[in-house]
């Protein structure tokens, strides 16, 4: 039963993809759409496969490095800050408007300023990813840490538990579903932030390549890079979901 459902889960989106690709291919061929406007899926695939090693691979590695470093640094900081804020109400009152401000600020507009401080290296982009990831992880984790049923806290009080014990044994595990929502969104935000930073000013990375290929009307390669970025986002999201399912086994 379970196995059948999981094959369905994989099969259904794949069928959509195949139908979409064939449809696109047919429409482009039928209406004779120029490759400069919209390249056919088959062309994207063949050109990208040919150019992958020389023109894409090294940039993919750079972008992955930026996303993953920023994600791995940003997520624990976000969870830790949320834990701190949830346990000290005065901190929460003082900081929560700024957390929301950080969530809504697109860091792409700050990248040029960061560059003035940090130069043109990868550090600027990693910083942008970290700063974009922390607040969204924080916001979700915080709502989890703040929404504990009173009867569970009563239980800990009746046992004479300390604040730290209550946090570790009840508040944190109780909030794990929300924390994971934060981490999943953090993965998406990391990807967006990395590519945006590359757009704003960089000589390497997939974001930069999209601009570069577009300017030379290499539309197949530009679209290829866009698809790879989407794939990175999906993979990160699914990996986190997988870990979530392994950890949160008590949810029906």
């Amino acid at each position: 039963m379970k196995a059948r459902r999981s094959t369905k889960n994989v099969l259904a989106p794949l069928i959509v993809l195949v139908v979409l690709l064939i449809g696109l291919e047919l429409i482009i061929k039928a209406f004779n759409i120029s490759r400069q406007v919209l390249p056919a899926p088959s062309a994207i695939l063949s050109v990208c496969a040919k150019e992958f090693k020389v023109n894409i691979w090294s940039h993919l590695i750079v972008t992955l490095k930026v996303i993953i470093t920023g994600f791995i640094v940003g997520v624990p900081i976000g969870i830790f800050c949320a834990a701190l804020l949830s346990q000290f109400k005065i901190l929460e009152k003082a900081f929560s408007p700024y957390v929301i401000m950080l969530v809504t600020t697109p860091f792409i507009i700050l990248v040029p300023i960061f560059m003035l401080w940090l130069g043109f290296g990868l550090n600027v982009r990693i910083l942008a990813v970290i700063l974009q990831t922390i607040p969204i992880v924080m916001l979700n984790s915080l709502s989890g840490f703040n929404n504990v049923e009173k009867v569970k806290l009563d239980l800990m009080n009746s046992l004479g538990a300390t604040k730290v014990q209550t946090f570790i044994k009840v508040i944190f595990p109780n909030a794990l579903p929300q924390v994971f929502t934060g981490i999943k969104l953090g993965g998406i935000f990391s990807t967006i932030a990395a590519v945006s930073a590359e757009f704003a000013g960089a000589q390497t990375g997939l974001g930069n390549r999209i601009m570069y290929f577009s300017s030379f009307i290499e539309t197949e390669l530009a679209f290829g890079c866009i698809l790879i970025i989407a794939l990175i986002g999906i993979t990160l999201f699914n990996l986190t979901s997988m870990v979530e399912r392994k950890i949160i086994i008590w949810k029906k």
Partner: protein
Amino acid sequence: MTIKALTTKNLTKNYQSRSGTTCALNDINIDIDDKQIVSIMGPSGCGKSTLLQILGGINKPTSGTISFYGHEYSEGIPNEDLKKIGFVFQADNLLAWRTVKDNLYLPLEIMNLRGKEWDNRIHELLDMVGLKKFINAYPHELSGGMRQRIRLIRALVHNPNLLLMDQPFGALDAITRKLLNYEFLSLCKKTQKTILLVTNDIDEALLLSSKIYIMSSSPGKITNEVKYDLPIAERNRVTARTNKYQQLRIELKKIIQEEMMQLRVS
């Protein structure tokens, strides 16, 4: 003269709200002997749960004192002495991410109790309620009655002297409730704990307790007290058919009805 397990002196609880001060509990004086089972009954909102929460360290009294096995406290019972108390909640608050076994270990972890004797105790208690084979199950895999049994023995794992129970069987269906009442009676005979039970069921109160306090609301205070001195060891499934029991049942019903009439008048 035996030492009292628990007494309260003029215990009062006020709540501050925007509309002023509300008195939830007013001059509560109760006493429980060691190994005695006492019940509290009263209409909802009379403060019987608040009283239990104050005794269980969840809430603090506004004034008055609690003495617990000879020690008098005015700020509520301190953490050190909470180790001698077990609390059974009305709400289902087993931790969903812990198995039955790990839920039972929670009090031991908090109180830093480790060792073979405690492991054995958990197995014994599980055996007592007939749930040994569910030791590695998660709470959502159990029925309501099973979860209630686990919550009951969770309050017993650290071997407390006093058990505080807040309408422990309230959320169950009538048949499961009756079944658990008798099961609990035999558990009481075996463990011989001092128990303070809040309930809304006359038969549950009469079957289990040797003293029943009746509370009235706004402000919550003790208005009546009924004693039933049949020793717990002599109680069983036929106790309810004895004359003494039936007589007390009628008396209790009358008191509660009068209480309700007064509620309607005021």
